[in-house]
């Protein structure tokens, strides 16, 4: 597969993300699929920061393994990242800042010293302009025309006249310097891929999916890596007519969303594990009051504050256990940026159809990294219907049962403001009308029975949801020597690994459990029973999805690939493990 990966690294404040994102944009503009992965610290300035931008004419799903161009803004970048340079690659740095010895790069890797600061100084005194030079260099090495970079710079710096001119000149100087002193890389991409691609992060896809599905109310409290959902929606609140409310904390955020949903609008809150921990009590209230609710939980490395800028899939067990007692919930684990869009939209539909809380479990890797997409990956959704579904009874009608015990467990829902349908939504146990059981009726035999029936009614939704949703399907070779099993963002490096394995002559496939709950246990058993061999792959310590599958089906996973160091899987790690498990020696 043809592909090119640029890595840029330096200190926070060096403008690393800008260089990386600009290059990603350049790739998608030129019609390549792209993936942009960012590594940063939990401080605002200082600390080592990097960005990997990968492009290919074919679909790619992850940051890949290694890089072809390493643009190092400081010495630490060389130390940390030079080992990831692939044969034929090149290290770009400014000799004015530090020097690089030939043995600091792997074999068959070139060193290209570029006087970025010196070239930049011609146009302005700020050292940040060196990145203009750097971007020119990278464009040239990638085999891309300077005009595309100039177009992007013009858009992003358009309003800052002088700065734009300086950047255009600097990048041109860099471009020329690279052409003169190096030329293009062997791996350079063609001048043009397919049609231009969209470049989007998982969080942007979640926000878009939510609005497409009718979101009218977001209440959120900032927490990495969920924060940018609020940022994006806040910036678009007026044009999309969405109330975006930054709450005083996560307890307020979820309770506000429940209030808004109760009032009749599609509502969402978003957070990471620590914030979700604070939502646990209200999460159960949404189920008890049968109020639709969508919660985005974008996981990061725990436990506790953990590593706020690192990824993990460590919160599934928390989400599944969230809140006292037992009630129906849905957990979705999208496995790509496009899935993030589609599953978020599905979350709203499920929440509303089944009047219960739905969690979209993302993680830092999916939420913050950017991927190139085709427009068709994000289908347009029908305009959401109005919620005023219960006909208003004649004045004074008293027969309305908000919590009517129905075969599906779902009851007709009224919205405050509707005439004659007044009811109480209560977090205490209640009867079909909403009247409390707890106050003066608990323990009375007839009401012991009511309690049991109401539990049955609510829990019944679970099997309904299971039947109404699709079981997971296999991706990749069929038949296969080995079936990988995972959920959420792990699908991304797995998909790239499947391609690599194919190249290695290994037939492997992947069971992507995009809906960890309610689990399609029987369907999963069917697939896995007929699999030659399985490999559970999760970004956590204890194989949490695996535990859910075992608890539901009794089926166990003798082989696992579990990672909990904060870094995403690299496709080659997966390949290596598969080679080991299938009894091959990895070559």
């Amino acid at each position: 597969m043809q592909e090119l990966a640029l890595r840029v690294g330096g200190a926070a404040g060096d403008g690393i993300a800008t260089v990386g994102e600009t290059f990603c944009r350049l790739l998608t503009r030129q019609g390549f699929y792209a993936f942009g992965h960012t590594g940063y610290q939990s401080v605002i300035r200082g600390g080592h920061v990097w960005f990997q931008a990968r492009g290919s004419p074919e679909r790619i799903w992850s940051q890949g393994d290694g890089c072809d161009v390493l643009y190092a803004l400081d010495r630490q970048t060389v130390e940390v990242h030079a080992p990831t340079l692939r044969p034929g690659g090149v290290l770009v740095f400014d000799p004015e800042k530090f020097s690089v010895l030939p043995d600091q790069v792997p074999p068959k890797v070139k060193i290209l010293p570029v006087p970025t600061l010196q070239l930049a100084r011609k146009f302005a005194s700020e050292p940040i302009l060196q990145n203009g030079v750097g971007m020119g260099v990278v464009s040239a090495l990638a085999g891309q025309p300077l005009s595309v970079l100039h177009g992007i710079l013009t858009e992003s710096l358009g309003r800052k006249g002088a700065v734009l001119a300086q950047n255009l000149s600097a990048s041109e100087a860099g471009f020329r310097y690279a052409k003169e002193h190096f030329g293009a890389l062997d791996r350079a991409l063609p001048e043009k891929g397919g049609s231009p691609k969209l470049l989007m992060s998982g969080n942007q896809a979640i926000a878009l999916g939510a609005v497409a599905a009718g979101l009218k109310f977001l209440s959120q409290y900032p927490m990495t890596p969920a924060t940018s959902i609020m940022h994006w929606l806040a910036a678009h609140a007026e044009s999309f007519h969405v109330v975006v409310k930054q709450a005083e904390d996560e307890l307020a955020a979820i309770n506000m969303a429940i209030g808004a949903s109760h009032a009749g609008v599609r509502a969402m809150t978003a957070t990471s594990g620590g914030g979700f921990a604070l939502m646990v009590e209200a999460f159960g209230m949404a189920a008890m009051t049968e109020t639709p609710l969508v919660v985005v939980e974008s996981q990061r490395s725990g436990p506790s504050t953990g590593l706020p800028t690192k990824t993990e899939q460590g919160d599934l067990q928390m989400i599944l256990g969230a809140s006292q007692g037992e009630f129906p919930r849905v957990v979705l684990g999208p496995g790509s940026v496009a899935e993030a869009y589609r599953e978020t939209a599905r979350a709203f539909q499920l929440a509303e159809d089944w009047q219960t809380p739905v969690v979209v479990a993302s993680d830092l890797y999916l939420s913050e990294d950017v991927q190139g997409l085709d427009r068709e990956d994000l289908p347009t959704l029908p305009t959401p219907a109005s919620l005023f579904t219960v006909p208003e009874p004649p004045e004074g009608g008293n027969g309305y049962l908000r919590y009517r015990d129905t075969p599906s467990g779902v009851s007709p829902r009224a919205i405050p403001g509707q005439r004659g349908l007044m009811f109480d939504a209560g977090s205490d146990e209640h009867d079909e009308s909403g009247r409390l059981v707890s106050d003066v009726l608990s323990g009375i035999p007839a009401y012991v029975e009511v309690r049991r029936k109401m539990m049955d009614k609510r829990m019944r939704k679970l099997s309904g949801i299971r039947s109404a949703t699709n079981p997971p399907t296999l991706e990749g070779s069929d038949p296969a020597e080995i079936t990988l099993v995972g959920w959420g963002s792990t699908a991304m490096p797995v998909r790239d690994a499947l391609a690599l394995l194919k190249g290695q002559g290994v037939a492997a496939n992947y069971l992507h459990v995009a809906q960890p709950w309610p689990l399609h246990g029987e369907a999963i058993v069917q697939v896995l029973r007929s699999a030659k061999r399985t490999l559970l792959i999760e970004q956590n310590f204890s194989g949490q999805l695996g535990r859910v599958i075992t608890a539901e089906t009794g089926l166990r996973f003798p082989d696992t690939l579990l990672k909990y160091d904060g870094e995403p899987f690299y496709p080659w790690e997966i390949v290596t493990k598969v080679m080991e498990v299938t009894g091959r020696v990895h070559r």
Partner: protein
Amino acid sequence: MKVVYKSQTKATWCPGCGDYGVMAALEMAFKALKLPPHEIVLVSGIGCSSNLPHFFKTYGFHGLHGRAVPVATGIKLANPSLTVVVAGGDGDGYGIGLGHSLHAMRRNLDLTYVVMDNEIYGLTTGQASPTSTLGAKTKSTPLTGVIEAPVNPLALALSAGATFVARAFSGDPKQMADLLVQGIRHKGFALVDVFSPCVTYNHLNTFDYFRSRVYKLESVGHDPTDPVAAFRRTLEWGERIPTGLFYRAERPTYEDLEPALKDGPLPHQRAGFPPDVDPLKEFY
């Protein structure tokens, strides 16, 4: 046709509980304002007092202990055309929920918040509440009595930016109804703190205790537009305790300033992307 506000569920408070007075005053206020019951939402937390919504035939949301205000905030922001009244106890609103209460005040949402302040935790059978009197012996303070100073809810409300700050007493439902009418009419956050004695667990702050102490602010020519005067009044505690309107100010409500509500209540707006917008454009 006569509008009915009360539901058929009999109130479950102890005989003599101060909360009956609040229920009566609230009904009087709804009647006086001629509010259609289906346009009222009563939101509460957990506590004896928080059972109130069940005794009215309006919309009701009986949520979690301490979280009534955020739920009410969500309801009001989704549909500002509803009259949203929050009701609950001193533990609910000034203890576990204190942060939410104060943040809602500075936001100046058009909510009315009635706190049935009985200086005790009623439903959990008599522990100290944040307004319990220094020295009060309760089930959680059986030896020394309370050793932390009680909160001063009105001073806090004033400091937090509430635009309507009042105090009533269950022994005077008329005054309370009048304050509730004003509070509901007021565009912005209205706090009505009510001395609502718990006859079962609080034998200190009784009806008699308050009856012998309360006086009406209007009787002493208090100027409710002066925050410093209001603050001084909130410090009065002891033999004489003021009731009535402490403070009132005009300030735009949060809902008024929220652009997404310009086109009316959210449930009535269309959802999804506006037809003239290509939301994907910016991603190229």
